[in-house]
């Protein structure tokens, strides 16, 4: 029954993981601003730790080459991936704690390109297991989250605090939290506004043959503008307005700051929401609506019992796209003084401090991924079973 075969995903992860040994695992800098020296695994880590990493990747390679369709083999890549993911951070932190030099009090240890690629490769292993465990809810969840949970626990207990990027965080804890919340508020509010306007535009475009083209011309055009250009475009008219009407200035609406960012991001988020609302109405079967009316439902009952259950999943997946997109674009909004996690990215770029860039970039990635997953779960929950049936063969 259990024929030996090649598992391509695991194999790819293992090959990338092994290749990462050829790049610098960690970077050692005399201080946070200097460029520093890269260290390979065997220079950076004690030999016992290096051997553990090599062995784990060889196991992954073996699991990829000798794949059998049974539970241990489905689980193995995911377990190895999670362990490696945690070890990359734990070993780097250990190295940072143990490397002390009285001559260099500001010594910094960061994860190097090899370390990041190894973490990425371990994620491929986790994905490989996730795919194979699609029918096993608990095991799948365990494989998906155990490594990340362990890292969060290690962070919280201070075990990783000697890694450079965490040191950057510790130095700016208050600022980080305020920029994070600013980021979330701007991204969330822009999608909120876009949801109200976008669903309206979508319904409008669907109802009126004449408006369909101009509405989509508008939202499509907005989407083709580079985000930076759109932010720039907002500055002049808003500056003019706030000069003309001091009330606006008192409210905080100026040429730069959160106001132009919010407007530009809302415009950006319009397309996916408008398009999905329009599509969801378009694909509603008119016979279903006619049957509903013919059976004696009033307008509100048709809306509530038929139109909303059938179109909500599609509209929500538009909002999902808009949210992920907005979280990313809000980073750029820091350039026009809107704040958010982009502040650290651009500070880091300006000061040439890679770890400061990461302090901004990593949370943005985590936020995007988590939002995407949460929305996916929400959409799955509210999609009526009768419709989900028709989508199943695709997934």
């Amino acid at each position: 029954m259990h024929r030996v075969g090649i598992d391509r995903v695991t194999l790819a992860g293992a090959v990338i993981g092994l290749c990462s040994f050829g790049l610098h695992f960690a970077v050692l800098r005399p201080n946070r601003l200097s460029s520093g020296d890269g260290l390979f695994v065997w220079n950076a880590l004690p030999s016992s730790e290096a051997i553990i990493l090599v062995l784990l990747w060889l196991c992954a390679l073996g699991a990829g080459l000798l794949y059998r369709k049974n539970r241990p083999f489905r689980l193995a890549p995911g377990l190895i991936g999670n362990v490696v993911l945690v070890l990359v951070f734990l070993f780097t932190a250990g190295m940072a704690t143990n490397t002390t030099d009285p001559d260099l009090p500001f010594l910094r240890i960061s994860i190097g390109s090899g370390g990041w690629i190894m973490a990425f490769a371990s994620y491929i292993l986790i994905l490989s297991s996730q795919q194979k465990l699609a029918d096993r809810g608990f095991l799948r969840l365990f494989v998906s989250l155990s490594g990340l949970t362990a890292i969060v626990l290690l962070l919280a207990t201070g075990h990783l605090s000697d890694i450079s990027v965490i040191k950057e965080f510790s130095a700016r804890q208050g600022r980080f939290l305020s920029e994070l919340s600013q980021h979330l508020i701007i991204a969330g509010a822009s999608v909120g506004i876009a949801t109200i306007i976008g669903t309206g535009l979508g319904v409008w475009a669907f109802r009126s043959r004449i408006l369909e083209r101009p509405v989509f011309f508008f939202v499509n055009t907005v989407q083709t503008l580079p985000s930076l250009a759109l932010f720039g475009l907002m500055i002049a008219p808003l500056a003019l307005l706030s000069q003309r009407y001091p009330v606006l200035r008192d409210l905080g609406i100026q040429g730069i700051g959160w106001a132009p960012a919010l407007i530009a991001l809302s415009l950006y988020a319009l397309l996916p929401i408008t398009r999905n609302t329009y599509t969801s109405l378009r694909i509603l079967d008119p016979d279903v609506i006619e049957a509903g009316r013919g059976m004696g439902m009033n307008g509100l009952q048709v809306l509530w019992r038929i139109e909303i259950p059938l179109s909500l999943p599609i509209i929500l997946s538009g909002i999902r796209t808009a949210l992920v997109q907005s979280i990313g674009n809000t980073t750029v909004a820091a350039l026009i003084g809107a704040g958010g996690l982009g502040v650290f990215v651009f500070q880091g770029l300006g000061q040439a401090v890679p770890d400061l860039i990461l302090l901004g970039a990593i949370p943005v990635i985590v936020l995007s991924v988590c939002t995407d997953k949460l929305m996916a779960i929400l959409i799955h929950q509210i999609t009526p079973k009768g419709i989900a049936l028709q989508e199943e063969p695709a997934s």
Partner: protein
Amino acid sequence: MIHIRNVTKRYGTSIAVDDISLEIPTGEICCLIGPSGCGKSTLVKLINRMLEPEGGRILIDGKDTRDFQPELLRRHIGYVIQNVGLFPHMTVAENIAVVPQLLSWNREKIEGRTEGLFRLMRMEPNQYRDKYPRELSGGEAQRIGVARALASDPAILLMDEPFGAVDPLNREALQAEFMKIQSDLKKTVVFVTHDLDEAIRLGDRIALMRAGRIVQYDTPEEILAHPKDRFVSDFVGADRALKRLSRFPVSEFMKEPVVVKVTDDVDAFLAKIREEGKTRFVWLLDEQDRLIGPVDSRHVHRPFNREEDVMEANCPAITVRNSATLREVLSRMLGQGVKTIPVIDDDSRLVGEISIGEIEKVTEEAAFEC
């Protein structure tokens, strides 16, 4: 009883329904038929006020439909459309329960009703209750569509080309089932179709429409026998005499057959027949009254030889079921080149015979003018 009085409906400048008056008696099926765009669907939608007329009145059992709120009116009029329009996000049982829920029935009553409707449609409740419309075949979906329309036990059923999207084989099955159900329920049905054969088969009356007007409103037999004008006779076609035959079930026209059982003394029987000289052919039956085949009383071996004396070995080809119509009988006669055909029941027992003479009598009655 549905009274449609001088009803007119316009779409912009074009008239869809032009001053139509029509009475549909309680318990009858009225088929609306006509070329596309003749206003037949519009007329149906005016009855349950999916559309509002520009002029005229529609009365149901003497009450003006305008006196009711449209939604409340529709909850008491069953409505079936061509593409079924089952709600894809609801199970089959939930679909059927929509109108009872709108009428705020309690749960036991709804469940009992759903159960009953499954049985009426000859569908196993446990097998279908929790399925979704996606999982049904076209025929099954339309059965559920009809069940859903019957859920609140309305006196009136509006059916807008209900079997139009189903394949011919399934359509005939659905029509037969619908007739069976209708013979029990005796709903007042307004049935839109573009299929003349369907109208002839189902309709107690046919209203033939053209350009928003009713050209002829009559029983199918009358429309086929006496088309009012050139349009009607063109519409019903040159083969209307044939089509008309499908209104007549063979069971009403067949005669008592002359039979002999294999357990009888076949020789003596045939000899007697021959002497009388009235009947030349007799039907030979087996012990269970099942038809073996025809026997010619003049050319029989002596002693009787079952292998050679039964004239037609391929008996099923020349027999018809007692559920058939005269049209099928005639077709079978022409196809097999025979003038008399035995009629059997579902258990293959001989119940009668019919010859071409009886069919001619039916067509003569109509006295076609061409």
